């Protein structure tokens, strides 16, 4: 009795995992398929848009943040793609992020509250 109960719960657990993973996969695919190439790279700090570049520009710039300007992310825009070359944040997640070019794609640096995103302007 107890054992069959455990087996049933194990099966339900698997169904639950299946539902969770397929829901997030569906969400991801919807996200991915609705993406188009963007034409602007916008940089926002603390939720406010601070800089904006054309994606066709060749840019190498330091994004300085923090109360005393102690935080730095180096933004590169080259060949229609944007990426972060270097950063002073502890986790370096933004540096490891692949280059972005599709509308809506972002690189986020949570410690510095910097978001680099691709946008579409007509």
């Amino acid at each position: 009795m107890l054992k069959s109960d455990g087996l049933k719960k194990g099966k339900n657990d698997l169904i639950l995992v299946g539902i969770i993973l397929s829901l997030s996969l569906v969400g991801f695919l919807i996200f991915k398929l609705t993406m188009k190439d963007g034409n602007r790279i916008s940089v926002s700090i603390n939720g406010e848009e601070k800089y904006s570049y054309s994606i066709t520009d060749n840019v190498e710039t330091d994004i300085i943040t923090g109360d005393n300007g102690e935080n730095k992310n180096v933004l590169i825009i080259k060949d229609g793609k944007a990426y972060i070359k270097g950063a002073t944040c502890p986790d370096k997640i933004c540096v490891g992020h692949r280059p972005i070019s599709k509308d809506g794609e972002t690189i986020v640096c949570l410690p510095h509250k910097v978001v680099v995103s691709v946008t579409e302007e007509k």
Partner: protein
Amino acid sequence: MKIETKNITVMALFSAVAIIFSYIEAILPPIWSAIPGIKVGLANIVTVTLLYKFSIKEASIVAFIRIIIIALLFGNAMTLIYSIAGFVLSVAIMDILKRTNLFSTVGVSIAGGVFHNLGQIIVAMLLLQTKEIGYYMIVLAITGTVAGILIGIASNLMLKYSNKLRL
């Protein structure tokens, strides 16, 4: 649960265990820093254990003590918001699924892990004013599942041994 010396002691004991778990995780290097939000969340062992041993009330009291102390020691207002959002969503879904009696401790814990990440994503979207971070949810759903399996197994052990100690 009545306010008795034994209950206060048990809550204090579990709070101490939860804080130690968070501390261990804070001093360990990140497992895989290429993707944000990857953390096993050892302290959730205590949350799952208390949820099964007592109820959502006890689990929440201990979690809030832990979250506030850890934020005071190692974090800031930002990490506090992320922790609370993650906890509230995860404990809510775990309590609901536990009440259905359809899933094992591991299944409940998996849902908790995924919803913990979901809560943090929602906070990140609101704080950074960008919906695009939703992109990460697929990664965080997978890592939340793995973390949930580990936490569920560990919680089963914790429940077994705490019953032996008659806590």
